[in-house]
């Protein structure tokens, strides 16, 4: 993966004398102090991050946190006061008007919260808008626009007008319009925020599906944490114009940078965020290695550790099975006096391991119903740890406790 977009120390000040406000920022004055003293608004303050080719990079923050300003600086709908924004290594803040228009026509397109379709144009004309502006011939732009409409499932509505479509369909047109120019970077400004929850989820799935077909570099702005978690490969969290944390959803949930970030996760359903690997623990059950353990020795060890069940794996840490006190006793009862007994005979039958990347939501029932901790294995079948009911409850509870 290479860096597609890099934002370095970008500032935006709205007001009559942005340079003066900039000096104040550098002297350490806060946004509110500067506003009180000069009447100027600091929109974005020292934002830095990099977006990799093909990832969905989410910028999240409450309203007024500067995220919309930030995204508009990426195609210079708003000119930054200071800093550098590089697309494929080229600094767009130094571009001439002509270069900028060329960049917007070929390299970067945008999806808007209120859809921003042209009411006087048909769906097809709307979709072809960017191509028409760039001077593409009619036949070529209609072909590309139809392909884009097909991709979002609206080919049949090509000759409708925006006022005949539902909100979700309008935003599909918005998305198709942005995709039709085949941009290197797609900016989505609260693109799904105006849609009702069901349609919003549908559109998120649509985006993820499109992304699985052809990975584009997407900068996705939202104030909705669940949405950020669902679509984001990485998330940048903004507070008062500054980027306070950048990381994968798991990283941010696990180690929120400050109280503000943590407060986002209060009441958030972490079961969507965490996978089995994130919560699996190795210290909860006794682990036995084969070969070399007899059934009787195993029972002895288990009693010694005061445990009720143990995971068995081989020397290469390949998962073998789970034994419990009950299953071991039952096995010993069935043995002759002199028989050593093989530990496989004592494996609990109904325990199936889960893979490390299983989301928490999908294994909740299994963990809840299983009398034993559920073992977690990686892609090669190697033992990673177990999840007990207690671990699960603890995880689901932790963000609340963390914020309290």
């Amino acid at each position, binding site marked *: 993966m290479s860096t597609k977009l890099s934002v370095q120390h970008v500032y935006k000040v709205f007001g009559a004398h942005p340079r003066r406000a900039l000096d104040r920022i550098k002297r350490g004055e806060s946004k509110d102090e500067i506003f009180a003293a000069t009447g100027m608004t600091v929109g974005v303050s020292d934002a830095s991050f990099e977006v990799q080719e093909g990832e969905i990079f989410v910028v999240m923050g409450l309203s007024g946190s500067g995220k919309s300003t930030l995204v508009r600086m990426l*195609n210079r709908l708003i000119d930054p006061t200071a800093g550098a924004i590089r697309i494929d290594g080229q600094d767009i803040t130094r571009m001439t008007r002509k270069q900028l228009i060329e960049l917007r*026509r070929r390299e970067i397109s945008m999806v*808007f*919260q209120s859809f921003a*379709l042209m009411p*006087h144009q048909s769906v097809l004309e709307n979709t072809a808008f960017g191509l028409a*502006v760039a001077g593409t011939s009619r036949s070529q732009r209609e072909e590309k626009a139809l392909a884009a409409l097909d991709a979002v499932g609206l080919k049949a509505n090509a000759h409708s007008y925006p006022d005949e479509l539902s909100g979700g369909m309008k935003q599909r047109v918005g998305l198709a319009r942005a995709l039709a120019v085949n941009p290197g970077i797609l*900016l989505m400004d609260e693109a799904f925020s105006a849609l009702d929850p069901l349609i919003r989820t549908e559109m998120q799935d649509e985006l993820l599906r499109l992304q699985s077909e052809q990975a584009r570099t997407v900068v996705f702005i939202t104030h909705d944490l669940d949405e950020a978690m669902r679509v984001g490969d990485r998330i940048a969290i903004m507070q008062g114009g500054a980027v306070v944390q950048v990381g994968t959803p798991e990283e941010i949930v696990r180690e929120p940078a400050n109280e503000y970030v943590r407060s986002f996760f209060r009441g958030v359903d972490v079961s969507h965020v965490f996978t089995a690997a994130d919560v699996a623990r190795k210290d909860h059950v006794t682990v036995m290695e084969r070969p070399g353990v007899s059934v009787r020795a195993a029972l002895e060890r288990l009693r010694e550790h005061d445990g009720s069940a143990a995971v068995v794996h081989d020397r290469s840490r390949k998962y073998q099975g789970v034994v419990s006190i009950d299953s071991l006793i039952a096995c010993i009862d069935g043995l002759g006096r002199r028989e050593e007994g093989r530990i496989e005979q004592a494996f609990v039958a109904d325990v199936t391991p889960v893979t490390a990347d299983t989301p928490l939501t999908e294994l909740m029932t299994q963990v809840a119903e299983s009398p034993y901790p559920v073992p977690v294995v990686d892609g090669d079948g190697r033992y990673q740890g177990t999840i007990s009911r207690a671990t699960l409850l603890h995880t689901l509870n932790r963000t609340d406790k963390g914020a309290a």
Partner: protein
Amino acid sequence: MGPNVDIGSFWQALKDAFVMELPIGEGFTAVVDFMQEHFELFFVAVANTISFVADNLTEFFNYLPPQLVFGVLAVLALWRVGWRFALFVLVGLYIVLGMDLWPESMDTLGLVIAATLAALGVGLPVGVAMAKSELLAAAVRPVLDFMQTLPAFVYLIPAVIFFGTGRVPGTIATVIFAMPPAVRLMNLGIRQVPTENVEAGRAFGCNQLQLLFKVELPLALPSIMAGINQTIMLALSMVVIASMIGAGGLGDPVLAGIQQLRLGTGFEGGLGVVILAIILDRLTQSFAQPNRQREGVLTRLKRFFGRADAERTA
């Protein structure tokens, strides 16, 4: 109140001390005189252009046989508005013809169209410029107020001084009076285009001209059409006043009615103006709405002659 204080003379003293007489009237006269003396060529050029357009238009409408005007306007009415309005157009024009005011009506129509074209030709670009520049907007707004509220007779006089009497000063006075709504509503319309649509235009790489023609003007169209409609209406009302300086048309019978107390003649002229006004108003208003979901003329004709109950589009 003390008996020694004479309030009247105190007031007078105050007035003498503070209020200076401003020679605004003299100034205006001086400006008009100066312009007449030094810009004669300019006025001749303007007069010739306007008289060329206005004369030809009025002559053209008078040249058209009434039957053709009936037909064209009725079909337009049927296409854009509905069969009931088409019927009104036919009856209205029949009344005009019956009152023997046909040539006057055509004169007025020509004058209104000439004045409207001139008003829009200047007004619409100014409106666009106002929307783009705060400075210009601040400068133009008081001028528009001035043009709209200054009593029309006040600039009829300088119009006569510059251009003599007749159609030309009448048209010019009409243009001045009718232009403000076109400017204002163009400005307003462009400013009211949703921000995100403008951003979308820019984000997809529009240059200034593309932004204007592909985004701003189409989205401002309802407002612009309302401005054009208002301009036509004001032009029509001014044309009557302009008959005082010999512009001719439907204002003549109205003026005659006033001057000679001929009630009937005045009323007939007035009625003619009203009929023209309603026809022009409905027709121009209909163009403010997009026609895409409307039916074609043929469907409407079929409906008209087939089923009389199909009135839901009216």
